[in-house]
């Protein structure tokens, strides 16, 4: 099964003006992903896509009258993300992956709110995307660094996940799906939603959670694992052990984050919830192998 990015998932790409998006579309086609259409605000050079039989639309509404899409990938410029994602939600697209970075926080709060109210799974902003190897690529992840398998991976940082996937591949461990929730302060979905999805996926036997210092996502994930009774084994790694915890501005941040957010607090919370905490990335494949016995 895998989650979110399935073999039959049809993908719409927004913000093709971004060169990164053009490269990613070519890569998706190389991976056999079902690219159902492209939304281009400006009518530029679209010959390339038409040659590949990918229709190009001026708006998401326009696209949805002609094609069906299960997942939107948003590469739009930071200030355009709020309206682009809102349009995709209004058009009824159930999963939205926002890869754009530097989205203003207030815009992120708004799209998170609107997505939750509409029951849409919003991943990002500043996500590195989702991939189920052997099925569908909806982000930066590539099959060169991972095998298909039965471990689900949820990460804040893209680059950290690339390294962990590569280490897992070297150890012969494959993944069902990798999801990058993004490292921004405000995210559409956090570890919890994806823990629940992996828990419900029969193909996923173990879950890897990759966190970092700052914020409270790891603590929230620990509470969720305990309270929602995630019984699949979870291995976690938190980066930033050697970094002194940053300062927050004003009393408000300090009051909000008191006792949470640093390396020790996160590892303590996760361990108390029965999560196996790896000390470095190299330990992740070792722990997974032990748990698989």
């Amino acid at each position, binding site marked *: 099964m895998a989650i979110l990015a399935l073999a039959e998932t049809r993908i719409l790409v927004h913000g093709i003006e971004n060169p990164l998006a053009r490269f990613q579309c070519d890569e998706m086609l190389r991976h056999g992903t079902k690219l159902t259409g492209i939304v281009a605000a400006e009518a530029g050079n679209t010959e390339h896509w038409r040659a590949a039989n990918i229709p190009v639309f001026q708006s998401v509404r326009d696209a949805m009258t002609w094609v069906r899409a299960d997942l939107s990938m948003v590469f739009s410029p930071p200030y355009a993300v709020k309206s682009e994602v809102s349009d995709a939600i209004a058009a009824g697209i159930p999963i939205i992956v926002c890869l754009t970075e530097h989205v*203003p926080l207030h815009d992120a709060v708004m799209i998170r709110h609107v997505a939750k109210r509409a029951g849409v799974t919003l991943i990002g902003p500043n996500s590195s995307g989702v991939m189920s190897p052997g099925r569908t690529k909806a982000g930066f992840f590539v099959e060169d660094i991972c095998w298909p398998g039965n471990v689900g991976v949820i990460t804040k940082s893209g680059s950290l996940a690339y390294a962990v996937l590569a280490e897992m591949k070297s150890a012969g461990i494959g993944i069902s799906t990798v999801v990058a929730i993004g490292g921004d302060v405000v995210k559409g979905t956090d570890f919890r939603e994806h823990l629940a999805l992996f828990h419900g996926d029969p193909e996923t036997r173990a879950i890897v959670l990759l966190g970092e210092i700052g914020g409270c996502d790891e603590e929230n994930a620990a509470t969720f694992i305990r309270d929602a009774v995630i019984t699949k084994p979870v291995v976690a790694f938190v980066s930033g052990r050697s*970094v002194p915890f940053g300062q927050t501005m004003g009393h408000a941040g300090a009051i909000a984050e008191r006792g949470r957010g640093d390396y020790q607090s996160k590892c303590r919370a996760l361990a108390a919830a029965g999560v196996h905490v790896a000390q470095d990335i190299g330990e992740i494949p070792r722990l997974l192998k032990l748990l698989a016995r």
Partner: protein
Amino acid sequence: MRLDLSPNGCNMLLLEHYGKTLFRKHGVPTPIGAVVRDDSSLSQALLSLPPRLVLKAQIATGGRGKGGGIAFAENAEEARRALAALLRNRINGHSVESVLVEERMVFTRERYAGIVIEDGEIRLLFGRSGGVDVEDITAADPANIVSIAVDPIEGPAVGQLQDCFARLDYAPDYWAAYERIGRALFAMSCAYDATMIEINPLAELPEGRLLALDARVAIDDAALDRQPDIAAMQPHPHITPRAPNTFAGLKFRENTEGGAIGLIGLGGGLNVALMDWIAGTGSKVAALVDIDEAIGSGQAQQGLAAALEAFDRNPSIRSILINIITCGYRLDEIVASLLLALGPNTGQRAKPVILHLRGNGAARAQQLLSAAGWTNSPSIAAAIEAAVAAARS
């Protein structure tokens, strides 16, 4: 090592007097006052101010009161002396360029009000006790602060606010004023892309009136391009702590605790994890550079060459680790640029360079490396082990 851990970059903290200008625009009352920079602007200001004054150094940092940045005066002469002292001194490492002179208020109570983005929501905060010790008070008594999640479209609901005021035992005469403060905080937060606004203390004056005695406003840097009026309120540029040194457009981060390894990496999240791993071996990263921006802007070769040159010149660095695991870029293209920066491996380099390169287009990358005589480490663990060993030999 201090890293910028705020995932959305930084927030610009406005000077108090700019914050108060925004407050007044949104109906939040502040004491009457004026910004002065020297004796003559003070003399001008004194003409319209009462004799009892407070003088506040305008610096974008916390702990100002405890750092000696606030002075009181009972008359013009005292005000002049206080101003001269504030302008002469450095407060918490910041020199003082301007001072806000305000009428000194008599108030009955110090409260707290703020708005912050937390756990994906906009949250309004009200406090029973405010002032410089609000953090300690709240640590001892968490009920000192009541925090409410605000609907980002509708704003705070009347019922939510009233529940909050009742829990904090605010006198009903003041509820209307507190509600106005709550709504103004929400409106300002949205209008100016503020990630945090704090009124501490928020003073209760007689007859149901409130007064914002301080203003701390942090603006989302990612939104500054659409907030030109706010962007123009930059604190004095030369007293704002600058970003770490840049070299050929690269951001280098130096480890203040020393170290012997130079790390060239791709992606902030992985770089931090590698630093942790190396620290776990008992060694340390002396400096690191994220090559992402150079590659993203099509300057991979220049960026890598500049990073290598800087590390070669840094006497504390004894080995260089280049760890690139890429998905978004093509590894073979990065390797082609790297080889132009690095040259063939003839054993002539000043310092040992250890490579761990993986990703998209790995087969061709491997061919290029082999042809140039370079070995690619089989894993991160192996690369770190080699870099640590080379730094020790």
